[in-house]
């Protein structure tokens, strides 16, 4: 089987304080330490697990980003991914969800994938819309919030996380699967993986390789417009309830009003 995992290089959430550029209203990504999205690490772990259980399968990591994103892909290779593809083109700068998904989908289409793994959302932008858009561009079913995934014949079967437990959802292959965060234990690159990462196949594609026009992607093709950015409102002080015999009732009412009960 041909399995793909979409990954992204992001400002290191452990060391970098996210900053928005007030002029472009975009996240500042230059001059900061960049890493493979920690969320993608668990998605890679899920994909590796499936590849190993299926046997006779190849796992490819794919990313759209500047040349530096190569490092994130090398890390994916060190973790055990077999092959990597980087789509890098100056015309891609400023891509919105639509442009990103269009580009990734164009690259994926050439590969005839059986299964495409994505994290539910990235740890920087958090839109959570790219996987759905990729599925749409490719005309594939999308299975979301998977905490377990298996392939049975020509079907993908997942356990889909819900508020109360899980649902079993299946779809024909090929399909796009998003992994629920925290469902798989992250894995470490191995020394062997690190030492062999450089020898694994790595290809870099530009827009023209994908047959895309610069007007369809990047700043030029963006259909999203960020109108304004602002600080989240500071959380208001909590309410202190003095127990005069009816505290439990008040608390229960409060929880019910906020649909927490």
């Amino acid at each position: 089987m041909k399995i793909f995992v979409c990954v992204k290089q992001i400002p290191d959430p452990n060391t970098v304080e996210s900053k928005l550029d007030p002029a472009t209203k975009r996240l500042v990504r230059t001059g900061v330490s960049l890493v493979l999205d920690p969320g993608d690490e668990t998605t890679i772990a899920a994909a590796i697990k499936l590849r190993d259980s299926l046997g006779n399968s190849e796992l490819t990591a794919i990313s759209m980003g500047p040349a530096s994103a190569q490092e994130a892909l090398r890390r994916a290779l060190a973790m055990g991914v077999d092959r990597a593809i980087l789509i890098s083109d100056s015309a891609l700068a400023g891509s919105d969800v639509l442009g990103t998904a269009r580009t990734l989908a164009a690259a994926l289409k050439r590969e005839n994938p059986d299964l495409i793994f994505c994290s539910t959302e990235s740890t920087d932008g958090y839109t959570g819309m790219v996987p759905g858009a990729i599925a749409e561009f490719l005309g594939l079913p999308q299975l979301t919030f998977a905490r377990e995934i298996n392939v049975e014949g020509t079907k993908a079967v997942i356990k889909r996380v819900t508020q109360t437990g899980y649902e079993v959802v299946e779809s024909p292959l090929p399909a796009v699967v998003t992994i629920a965060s925290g469902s798989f234990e992250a894995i470490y690159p191995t020394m062997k993986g690190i030492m062999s990462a450089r020898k694994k196949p790595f290809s870099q594609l530009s827009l023209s390789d994908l047959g895309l026009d610069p007007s369809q992607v990047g700043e030029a093709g963006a259909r999203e417009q960020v109108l304004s950015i602002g600080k989240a409102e500071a959380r208001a002080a909590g309410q202190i309830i003095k127990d005069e015999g009816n505290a439990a009732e008040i608390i229960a009412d409060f929880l019910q009003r906020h649909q927490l009960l």
Partner: protein
Amino acid sequence: MDFSLTEEQKLIQQTVRQFVERELMPLEHEVLRNEGRYPTGIEPERYRALQLKAKELGFWGINTPEEYGGANLGSVMTALIQMELGRTIVPFSFGGSVDNILLHYSNEKQKQEYVIPVIEGKRISCFALTEPGAGSDPSAIRTTAVKDGNHWVINGQKVFITHGNEADFAMVFAVTDREKPPQRGGVTCFLVDRAMGWTSRPIPTMGGWSPAELFFDNVRVPEDHVLGEVGQGFSLGMQWIGQGRWLIAARAVGTAERLLQMAIDYARQRVTFGKPIAERQAIQWMLADSAVEIQATKWLTLHAAWKADQKQDNRYEASLAKLYGSNMVNRVVDRALQIHGGMGYTKELPIERWYRDVRVTRIYEGTDEIQHYIIARALLKGYVHLGTWD
């Protein structure tokens, strides 16, 4: 001049950092609570389990040759790894290591009996050179070994021996020929099993380092337990001591970086008289001085390590790094504690523990004074030519 790390170096560094953050840092509170209970602060079985988890990833025998199953990553990589491990108060080391002299000077029988079991973690060694009257001056050792038939009989006492309480054998340095100066054939190194009769007693210290006193009372050692040649002991001892000096500086870099980051974070959020203390010049200078000194140690250390990788004599550079790095980390921990104020003095944070722990880095593996002496001697005797690159 290229200061960047290779892709492999970066990946290894990131992986060790993640290992430290995910596996070791969560144990810090426990280690602080367990001070004095275990040599590592965590139960030996759990410590071993962590080493084995790392082994599965290939982090094993960082400097051990491949033929012994090691990763053999070289000195620069070892320094980078030590910097990462230094970031936590959990005193962790990857398994699969063996003392350099044991590896290089043992015969085939000794390799089977000592080297391989040490690499596999089945046996624990300790390096027993220092004595009550012979620390910085190892030529003053008094422990004796006298030949009796096909045995040597050892009498004497050793002190401040790292792992001396846990070790099941010791590399013991003893005078075998009083007529000869120690540097010229008077001292021999013996591999002495605890089962041959030596005993140990822990020495309580002000920090996490818990060395031992070792006692030898007519301990009979078979003659094939000499490491290297009879009379070669002093040279072996010096080689063992020399190997670790710049590693102390590497650990100091990691520890100081963590402490500086803690100080930065705290200074930003701690408000006095209406302003975060980070806006006060007094605090800013402490942060800036620390950053300068950490950076200086980093390059001193990597240079010493790089020279080792080039198979060049790095004793001078190792002394520079060790002297500067061990003093640097003592200053940085003092500033970090000062910036944290009362919080820094509590046992809620690892700072006070580090404050006590790092003091010994100015003492063991060659005191500040010895490092000064080595550096000055190299300058005065013309071993080092200022202004040259070699």
